[in-house]
């Protein structure tokens, strides 16, 4: 679908535009990028930072595009039902003639949009959605964020190999992403020769629970380590509070978690309660690389000294970097097949380190950093203990469950 017209005639709800949108004026070329994210959802602040990161990338790198201009069209997908995202994606494709879509904060949003982009032949870059099998659902989906298996599986192996977690208990919020993390960590842990002592579902994602009974259950089993997954924000903050109240740090049970537990933007609110927490994640603002330092400096120059980017922010930033790569490669004339081809094997020096898109799975390959919450220079920050380099999505490598079968299920 050609959408290079300088201005679509948007009368009659775009009816005319759909039929007549031949390139009326060819320059400057405008590439329309639809951004469908849950701005008004519970994680609205996180989502807003993703969009800010996209705009920051555009500001810093805008000149590289020459005459081509990128226009962001922002839509609010509200609740994670999938239905709203699907409706908005269809609307953006047919009414607004977007060329590229950035969407999928939550997995259901991406899953619901997959058949639409397949049928309409549009590139969809996943901004966050971490269910592994999503990239199997459409040849036009590319993931620059992360898959939950990519994060939890290597940590399962690492837990046994480095900190020596002989006895480990997993705690997770009981919904699809949590169960994914459990399965991945368990798989990695068992590959390395361990057996999980216990796996504790800690309630659903609709309300933050009182974590006391769960943490007590962990403590009473006196394991070496616990591995925890909860969504970031209100959950981890309440968890840190209860963890401190029960003096869990003094029991000698090591805390390991996903990157959500050590999200950079929340460390100041934890205070000393979460000191010593370890996590495996794809990014921390304290990463000591020139690329990251440049990024953090630019971020704080734009959005204030107190604003700290976190992994969501970098997902948004890299999603826009991928858009730029596509626009540059195709000289602004976006064709979904060529765009996907351009992204396959794309190598990029991201703030989170070197990333590249695996041409076989269209999934990002990236480092996983083992992080620890420490106090440094009078503030709370992250020390990187270890780097697990160039991790591919293990779910697809091992062909587990839906990662193997999802492709055949949906056309």
């Amino acid at each position, binding site marked *: 679908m050609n959408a290079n017209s300088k201005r679509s005639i948007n009368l009659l709800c775009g009816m005319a535009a759909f039929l007549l949108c031949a390139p009326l004026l060819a320059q400057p070329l405008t590439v329309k990028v639809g951004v469908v994210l849950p701005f008004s959802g519970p994680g609205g602040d996180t989502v807003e930072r993703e969009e800010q990161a996209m705009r920051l990338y555009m500001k810093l790198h805008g000149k590289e595009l020459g005459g081509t201009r990128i226009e962001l069209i922002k839509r609010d997908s509200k609740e994670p039902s999938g239905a709203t995202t699907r409706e908005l994606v269809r609307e953006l494709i047919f009414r607004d003639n977007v060329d590229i879509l950035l969407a999928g904060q939550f997995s*259901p949003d991406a899953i619901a949009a997959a058949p639409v982009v397949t049928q309409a032949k549009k590139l969809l870059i996943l901004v966050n959605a971490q269910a592994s099998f999503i990239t199997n659902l459409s040849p036009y989906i590319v993931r620059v964020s992360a898959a939950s298996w990519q994060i939890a599986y290597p940590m399962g192996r690492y837990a046994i190999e480095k900190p020596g977690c002989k006895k480990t208990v997993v705690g997770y919020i009981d919904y699809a992403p949590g169960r994914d993390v459990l399965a991945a960590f368990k798989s990695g842990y068992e590959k390395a020769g361990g057996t999980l002592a216990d796996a504790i579902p800690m309630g*659903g994602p609709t309300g933050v629970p009182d974590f006391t009974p769960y943490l007590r259950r962990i403590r009473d089993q006196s394991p070496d380590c616990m591995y925890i997954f909860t969504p970031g924000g209100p959950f981890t903050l309440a968890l840190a509070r209860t963890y401190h109240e029960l003096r869990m740090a003094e029991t000698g049970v090591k805390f390991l978690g996903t990157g959500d537990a050590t999200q950079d933007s929340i460390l100041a609110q934890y205070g000393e309660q979460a000191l010593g927490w370890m996590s495996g994640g794809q990014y921390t603002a304290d990463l000591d690389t020139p690329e990251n330092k440049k990024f953090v400096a630019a971020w704080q120059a734009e959005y204030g000294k107190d604003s700290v980017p976190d992994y969501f922010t970098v997902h948004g930033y890299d999603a826009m970097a991928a858009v730029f790569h596509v626009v540059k490669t195709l000289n602004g004339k976006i064709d979904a097949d060529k765009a996907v081809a351009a992204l396959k094997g794309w190598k990029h020096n991201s703030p989170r380190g070197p990333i590249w898109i695996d041409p076989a799975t269209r999934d990002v390959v990236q480092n996983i950093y083992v992080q620890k919450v420490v106090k440094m220079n009078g503030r709370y920050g992250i020390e990187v203990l270890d780097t697990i380099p160039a991790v591919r999505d293990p779910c697809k490598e091992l062909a587990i469950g839906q990662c193997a079968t999802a492709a055949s299920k949906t056309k």
Partner: protein
Amino acid sequence: MERSERGADTSGVSAAERFLKGRDGLRAIEALPWLAAIAFPIAFPDCALLGTHVLIMMLFALSLDVIVGYAGIVTLGHAAYFGVGAYTAGLVSARLGWSEPISGLLAAGIAAGAFGLVTGSVLLRYQHLALIMLTLVLSTMVFELANAWADLTGGWDGLMGIQLGPLLGLFEWDLRGLTSYGYALTVLMASFWWLRFLSASPFMQGLRGIRENRARMRAIGTPITFHLLIAFTLSATLAGVAGALFAQANAFITIEVLGFERSAAVLTMLLLGGVGRLYGALAGALVFIVAADWLAKMSPIYWEFGVGLLLVLVVLLYPNGLLGAIERVRAQCRRRSA
């Protein structure tokens, strides 16, 4: 049943006569919204998706009107029936591989209706706060059950693999949603006109009577619980059909279809339009969704405020909803000109 009808029907004319004449009589102006609905996708084919969404919620609100508006039962858990319908239609296709849409729709209506019959036979013994609480807890339980049973329902990640054959073997499900729009409109029209016909019937008159004065209706021999149960089952069936339309039009659902937010939203739509007048459900769904869409585009973070304010204002100033307000204005004009 027989007795109750006679009990409620004081005038002695048949339902068909009442439908054509009298208080609930048919008026020419009633063709207008339907003509508009048919013309809409022709004028704005790119808005068919939003239109389909509106039609589905109209049907859902309509189903709620049967029990809230006519029988005076307030529930905070109507999404349970919407969700049972949605999952029936979805599972029939995704798990059993049955792709014919209309039979899926009927199956969903039957499943939701059966669920309504079973739950209603218990719930309807209660009133007021107890009933509201029970519906809230019951729907929360259904939601949690769907989350626990994620192998079947897909849980938060959603039910994938809903695939539908062409409608009536003729119409493919196009991406722009014209087929879904026509499908949803047909189902809505059929349901609406059935209810519209029923609204003149002794049965619905009886429901109104129960809402106005239970004791008196009991005194004249209406089997109240039975009467309410029929209405509740009818309402659950229609809610299930709306859910099925939702599942089929989107070819995807998550357990969000069972959530409290949906129950609250549909109640809001109904109140907004006006309770107990069928057209209120249609107007309310339209205004709510369009307003939410508009507010969300203007300032996505704070669209909640606008919807909340609208609710408070409607309750305080226009307790009969938008249609009630319009009627009031019209009555005043008439009085003045007379």
